[in-house]
C-alpha cells in the first residue's frame, strides 16, 4: 500500500501540470479570500474597517471554497487519467486487487489535500492578520478557539467534497461524473432551500451542509449526528463505487 501511495506522489512530482494546478489552487484561494474581504462593502454593505478579526477570518475563509472546487476537479482528473483506456491496463496489472488500488488512491488524495488545505488555511490566517494589523484591528491574540474550529472545519469540508469526487469518478469512470457528483451534493441544498420550509427542512437534514457548518462552527447540531451524516455520505458512495469498479472488465 505504501508503495502505491509513494508512486502517486511521484506522479505529482514528475508532472509539471499537476504541480502547477496545485500551486494555482493555493494562490487562487488566497487571492479570492482577499477579494472577498476587500469587496465586503459591495457584497454586504459594511465598511471594511468595521470588521472584527474573526469576521475578517470568516470572510477570507471563503477562499477555502475555491480550494474545494479546484481540488474536486483535480481529484476527478487525477483518478480518471489512471482509469483512461490503456493506462488502466498497466495500473491494474501492477495492482489487480482493486480494493487495494481504490483505498491507496483515497489515502493518497486525503493526505495530499490535508496538507494543501492546512497550507491554504494558514496563509488565509496570515493574510487576515496582515490586513488586520494594517488597519489597527486586534488580531490573532483575540481569535481564540473559534479560529481553530474554522480551520478544522475547512479541512473537513475539503476532504469531504474531494472524496465524493473520487467516489463519483470511480463510479461513473469519467472526470465529468466525479465533478458533477461532488458539485451536485454541494449545490443541491441551495436549490432545496427555494422550497417551503415544510419540504426543505426534512430534506436538508440528510444533506451534508448543516453537518459541515457544525464543524466550521456556524451551525447547530451534535458532533455525533454531524459526523454520522458526513461519514454516511462518504461511505455509501465509496462502497457503491468500489463495487462497480470491481465488476468492470478493462
Amino acid at each position, binding site marked *: 500500500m505504501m508503495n*502505491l501511495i509513494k*508512486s502517486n506522489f511521484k506522479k505529482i512530482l514528475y508532472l509539471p501540470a499537476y504541480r502547477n494546478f496545485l500551486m494555482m489552487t493555493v494562490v487562487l484561494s488566497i487571492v479570492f479570500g482577499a477579494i472577498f474581504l476587500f469587496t465586503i462593502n459591495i457584497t454586504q454593505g459594511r465598511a471594511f474597517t468595521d470588521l472584527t478579526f474573526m469576521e475578517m477570518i470568516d470572510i477570507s475563509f471563503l477562499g477555502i471554497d475555491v480550494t474545494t472546487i479546484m481540488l474536486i476537479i483535480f481529484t476527478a482528473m487525477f483518478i480518471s487519467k489512471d482509469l483512461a483506456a490503456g493506462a*488502466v*491496463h*498497466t495500473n491494474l*496489472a*501492477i495492482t*489487480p486487487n482493486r480494493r487495494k488500488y481504490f483505498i491507496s488512491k483515497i489515502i493518497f488524495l486525503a493526505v495530499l489535500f490535508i496538507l494543501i488545505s492546512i497550507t491554504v488555511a494558514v496563509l488565509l490566517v496570515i493574510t487576515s492578520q496582515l490586513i488586520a494589523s494594517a488597519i489597527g484591528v486586534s488580531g490573532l491574540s483575540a481569535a481564540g478557539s473559534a479560529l481553530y474550529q474554522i480551520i478544522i472545519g475547512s479541512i473537513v469540508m475539503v476532504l469531504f467534497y474531494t472524496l465524493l469526487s473520487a467516489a463519483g469518478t470511480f463510479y461513473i469512470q469519467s472526470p465529468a461524473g466525479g465533478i458533477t457528483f461532488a458539485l451536485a451534493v454541494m449545490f443541491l441544498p441551495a436549490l432545496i432551500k427555494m422550497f417551503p420550509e415544510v419540504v426543505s427542512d426534512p430534506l436538508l437534514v440528510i444533506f451534508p451542509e448543516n453537518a459541515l457548518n457544525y464543524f466550521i462552527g456556524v451551525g447547530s447540531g451534535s458532533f455525533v449526528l454531524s459526523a454520522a451524516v458526513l461519514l454516511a455520505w462518504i461511505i455509501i458512495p465509496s462502497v457503491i463505487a468500489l463495487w462497480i469498479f470491481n*465488476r468492470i*472488465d478493462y
Partner: protein
Amino acid sequence: MIKLENLTKVYGDKTAVDGLSLTFKPGVVTGLLGPNGSGKSTTMKMIISLVNPTAGDVLINGNKYKDYQEPFKQVGTLIDPSALDKNFTAKQHLSIIAEAANINSDRVDDMLQITGLDNAKDNKLKSFSLGMKQRLGVATALLSNPAAIILDEPFNGLDVDGIKWLRKLFKELAEEGKAVVVSSHLMSEIQAVADRVVIIGQGKLLADMTMEEMNEKSLSSYVYVEADNLEKMKKALEEKQAVIKRKDAGFEVRNLEAKEIGRLALEQQLTLHELKSVKPSLEELFTEITSGKADYVSQGAENK
C-alpha cells in the same frame, strides 16, 4: 506455470472465451493465434485479472493473479503499448511502475539499456513511435524479472532490428526458464519464435501442439512425386492406401512419407523425376484450422 481451467467469458449473448483449458509451461515460447475477435486478448486479460471470468479459473503457480501480494513479480505483461501517460518520460514511466510494484529502482536503468531506449530515456512518451512504445512495453513487462511474460502483438510497429531483437529475447527468456506467451497476427513471426502454437477460434481451443506436430498433422503437408509412369505409380500408391491428388506433372500424396514412396518406386522399378516433402507455412496451417471460424472476414478474403 499458468493454468487455464475451463475459462469462460460471456458478454451479453456473445461468448468471447468458451471453456478454454490450457497450460503455459516454463521454458517454452507459446504463440497464441486466432482471427480478430477470437478471444486472444480477452484470455490474456483474464490471466492478469483485467477481465473477470464468467466461469473457470486462471491459476499462476497455484494461485490467482490478484491474490498475490506482488503479482507483477509473477507475470509481466504487455497488453497495450499505448497504456501509458504520454506526459512522462520513459524513465519516469518505469520509475513509477517500479515504485508501485516494489521493484528495485536499479532495474529501471537495466531495462532501458536492454530494450535499447537508453538514449531516449528522458524524452516524453508523446514523442515515441509505436516501435519505441513497444520496446517500453517490453521493458515494463520485464521490469520485475517475472516468471512468466505475456505479450499481446509485440511485433507491431517494430522495425527489422526490433523484430530480430525481440526474437532473440524470447529465446533467451525461454532458456532462462520463463513461460513466454506471445500473440500475433504476423504468423511468420510466431513461426520464427514459438516452440508451441495455440490456436483459438470463436473463443474455443482449435489447436494446441508443437510446431513439429502441427506440420505433421496438417492436411497442407504432403509429398510431391513425379515419375516416368504415372499410371503405374498411382496404382502402387493406392494399394498402400495413400490419398492422391493430381498436381502439375505429378501427384500430391498424403498418408505416406517420402521414404516409403521412394521404396515403393524402387520396388515397382519406376524412375522418379521429383520427390519432395512439402511443409505448409504457419499461415496455411492457420487458414486450414480456422477455416470458417473467423468472426470478421472480408468478402475478398473469403473469395480467395
